[in-house]
């Protein structure tokens, strides 16, 4: 049966590709599982634990969406994707959404026909050097050897930065983060550059983290966020507002500890609308009234997810920085639930 379907399908594939993409939410509900594309492994963002359960900051977004739509934070099929396969996996419908440390750029949004539903982590490219190098600014790195992952935007950003500052460098091309750690520790390069979150995670694994410093310059904008296919706005809305619900929950002081109490109704009408004791927001999304309640319960609000996976109490130890609420001087700013 399968083969005849395939053969016949090959001819009409082009026509069907656009049309059949509609109705992701119905597909997910019918399947009873959310197919969520994640990385094959990135510290703090997505990794399987010893029992094969996926954990991490990006994973938490998948679980929140599954909880909102299906009522079960574990009804997620995590599909590991590499940098090369991620976009085809999403475009072909193999996954319903991608929460995979993907930088929101113009061409990905417009040319590749995806829709970034928001930003769950503001990252940027930074530099790490050994303290013994005695460097306090990236602009002093003239003539340095730099470990850099090939074929990434970081490579291009680096070239831009050095050229615009009119200094020279010698690249040491490497393939993976693990290789970079080894090379850097072995002294094959003076500087290691990648996303600041990755640098922090890498530094945390060193035997003597204090012998290495992150330079203050952040030379690029890397807004990372979940994305869905173009043209299925209902589904895009669900993912977007699930993410916004997590962010708003932190702003409004809803935590996994007090959420059941707050769901009974509070003085604050926005909390009531968000948690479904007032208004019909869930209905507008095509979900029930408790969708946001379940999404927040899945792993806590944005701040709790952050603290659990990559925050200062974890080995990775990232400060909130740009990822603080706008009320605390960060960039997180969820549109109102109204």
């Amino acid at each position, binding site marked *: 049966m399968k083969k005849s379907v395939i053969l016949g399908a090959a001819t009409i594939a082009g026509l069907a590709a656009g049309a059949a993409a509609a109705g992701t939410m119905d597909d997910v509900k019918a399947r009873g599982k959310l197919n969520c594309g994640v990385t094959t492994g*990135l510290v*703090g963002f997505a990794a399987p634990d010893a029992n094969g359960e996926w954990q991490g900051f990006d994973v938490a977004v998948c679980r929140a969406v599954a909880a909102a739509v299906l009522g079960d934070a574990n009804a997620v099929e995590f*599909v590991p994707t590499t940098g090369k396969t991620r976009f085809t996996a999403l475009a072909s419908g193999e996954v319903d959404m991608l929460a995979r440390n993907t930088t929101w750029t113009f061409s990905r949004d417009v040319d590749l026909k995806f829709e970034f539903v928001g930003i769950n982590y503001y990252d940027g490219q930074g530099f790490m050097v050994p303290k013994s190098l005695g460097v306090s600014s990236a602009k002093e790195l003239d003539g340095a050897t730099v470990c850099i992952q090939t074929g990434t935007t970081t490579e291009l950003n680096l070239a831009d930065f050095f050229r615009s500052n009119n200094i020279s460098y010698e690249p040491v091309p490497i393939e993976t983060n693990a290789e970079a750690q080894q090379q850097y520790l072995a002294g094959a390069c003076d500087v290691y550059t990648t996303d600041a979150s990755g640098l922090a995670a*890498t530094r945390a694994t060193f035997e003597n983290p204090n012998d290495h410093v992150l330079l203050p310059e952040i030379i690029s904008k890397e807004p990372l966020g979940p994305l869905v296919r173009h043209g299925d706005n209902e589904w895009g809305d669900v993912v977007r507002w699930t993410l916004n619900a997590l962010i708003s929950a932190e702003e409004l002081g809803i935590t996994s500890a007090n959420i059941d109490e707050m769901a009974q109704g509070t003085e604050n009408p926005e909390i009531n609308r968000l948690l479904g004791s007032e208004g019909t927001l869930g209905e507008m999304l095509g979900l029930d009234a408790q969708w946001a309640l379940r999404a927040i319960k899945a792993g806590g609000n944005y701040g709790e997810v952050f603290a659990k996976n990559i925050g200062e109490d974890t080995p990775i130890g990232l400060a909130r920085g740009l990822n603080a609420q706008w009320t605390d001087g960060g960039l997180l700013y969820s549109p109102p639930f109204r």
Partner: protein
Amino acid sequence: MSDIGFVRTEMLPEQAPPASEVGIIGWMRHNLFDGWFNSALTLLSVYFVYKVLAALVPWILSPTWDAGSLAECREILAGLGREGHYAGACWGVINERWIQLIFGFYPAELYWRPIAAFILLGVALAPVLFSDKVPAKLLVFSALYPFIFPWLLWGGTIWGPISALLGFVIGWLVYSAVDKAMSNLVGIIAGTLAAVIWWLVLSGYFVGAMDTIAAIGIEPVESRKFGGFMLSITIGVVAIACSLPLGIVLALGRQSDLMIVKYLCVGFIEFIRGVPLITLLFVASTLLNIFLPPGTDFDIILRVLIMVTLFASAYMAEVIRGGLAALPRGQYEGADSLGLNYWQSQRLIIMPQALKISIPGIVSTFIGVFKDTTLVSIIGLLDPLGLSNAIRADANWNGIVWELYGFIALLFFAFCFGMSRYSMYLERKLHTGHR
């Protein structure tokens, strides 16, 4: 003339050889210290071996088996007064993750199924590999095994494999009926057609119907749950098992006098050999996805299996063609002069000799295919190498490299070395050297 002569009448008793020529000393004199140049080389080699072991053994002998994270490993080692980047291995990661490295994400309560599948694989292979030591009746089980193997791994209703098996039975029945009534060629075509029609059209209804009558089955496991060595071995075993017969057919096709068959085979072999495996894997994982309509669930592992099998069979075909080419022309002519038809002469005269000659090449191809399975990590399947990356992404184990790769290398070595030793055993048994 004096007639003093000396004729020894009894043999001298044998004397023990000088102590410097026998035993450990003699061996060392002959093999290690034979002249100043060899002595110098020996001493130099011993020094190098000592240096390597002196660095490696303390690193390996590191009491970190129960550590829960890299930091804990370092604490343990620091407690022993061992500091520095290479103070000692952190075996805690292997302790925590070895099951995952072997079974991937396969449900823990179902581990018995892959274990049973691979033990039965040994049983099924025994009559093929060790034909002189195992009763030939087991071959029946070997023939059934290709249907048992996927059922054990993927689970689901038992009627699926049964219906696949029925396809062969139907094909054979049709073939033998038509063969008697009409000609051999028509029989082959009709038999193949009947089997294909059964698989593509009728078997779906059959499985559905039988499932409603008697739903016998085991819990299905999705392909996404496959990982680690289980995935490597599954891909390797299937590709190896399918590529040998496919390769034989392709090699014969390439030598065939039928023009269309010949050029189809040549085209296929040259195309597949001209393309890197990784390209084929990308086609399997991404390009097919674009061509197939969204929502078509064409299993990723099945796609990879097909691609790896095609890849391996093209190489296999050339290895076997080498064996065929090495046979003297007289063998072909001798077969013809005995009045054997094409298939008889291939089966009885040509193939046994050609395959015998090709054994080292065939086994090298097998070993190559098995190791090539690690390439699937690039398309996001979590084989042992892919998993090692995922394990490093755990904050506890970030920064661990050598321990994971060492463990994976050890397991791969065990499998490949086993295959290589078997091929040497087979060569000895069959005397392929024309000695």
